[in-house]
């Protein structure tokens, strides 16, 4: 096992533990998470899998394929987070506004 494999699998293991501690309630989450972890570990330990997939898709190397898909996923995550921030902002605005109107003073 090469150094990078150890490094990456440990990283995945830590993330997995962290998520399991937080999301242990929902079966659906656990199944998805298990699948993702299994896939990640498989790709790390046997990088040839990604190479084969990459070649089938017309990408030179497995590492490149992983890189491209990560960019897509990050875009998606950023948009999701942004939408959530906006929603939060709207909720805060609503609360602050209601407060301001309820407590309006008149000289």
């Amino acid at each position, binding site marked *: 096992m090469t150094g990078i494999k150890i490094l990456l699998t440990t990283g995945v293991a830590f993330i997995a533990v962290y998520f399991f501690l937080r999301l242990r309630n929902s079966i659906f989450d656990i199944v998805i998470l298990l699948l993702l972890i299994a896939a990640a570990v498989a790709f790390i330990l046997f990088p040839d899998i990604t190479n084969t997939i990459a070649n089938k898709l017309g990408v030179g190397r497995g590492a490149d394929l992983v890189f491209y898909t990560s960019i897509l996923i990050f875009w998606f995550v950023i948009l999701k987070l*942004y*939408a959530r921030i*906006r929603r939060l*902002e*709207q909720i*805060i*605005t609503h609360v*602050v*506004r209601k*407060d*301001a*109107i309820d*407590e*309006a*003073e*008149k*000289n």
Partner: protein
Amino acid sequence: MLNQNKANAVFVIIPFYNENTVIREVIEDLLPYNYQIVLVNDGSTKSPYNILKDIDSLYFLHHKVNLGQGAAIQTGIDFALQKGAEYLVTFDADGQHLSSDIQSLLEPLQNNEADICIASRFLEKGMHNATKGRKITLKVGRWVNYFFTGLFLSDAHNGLRAMNRTAADKFNLKENRMAHATEFLIAIKKNKIRYKEIPATVVYSDYSRKKGQSVFSSIRIFFDLVLHKLFE
């Protein structure tokens, strides 16, 4: 000048954030008109209350945290509508606008020629002493607004507007910061609100230049708009 009864139904909404140096003058200027004045303090670090507590007939609203000018205006609109306002005016707190211009914005509303009147410093008879950089920014802003809303106004970003109740009811500003000026236009277009541009003066003092929007904040407004279109 309007008679007493009519003036009572005009609510002037002043969004306010740390403008303590000029706010008193701005309000004293408005007092002779007998409008209802709604001051929305948008979480200022120093409350204006002490400066203004001896002025009668002033509504004070406080945001507990700073949300932005758009949010403050919407709070003022909601409040004024609750209080039975017939006409609502938005007015900047930094002394840029002249209280005497309000009447000319109200007239088309009272004659039922428009539902909202937007002040313009670039129409004939409108006046301003804007710097060259600001003029260019506002010119670009016109096109940006046109691109986002389909309305081509002569002045992209003027804080002075007057609207009737029907129009005010249709506004629900979600852009808390400065992009609300364009959001007004989006709502005008979407709800087919009758609008009219009215020439008005914008006075740039050293103070308002310092406090107001820099040319660069227009970039932020632009991105707020792009995101607004994407997420609403």
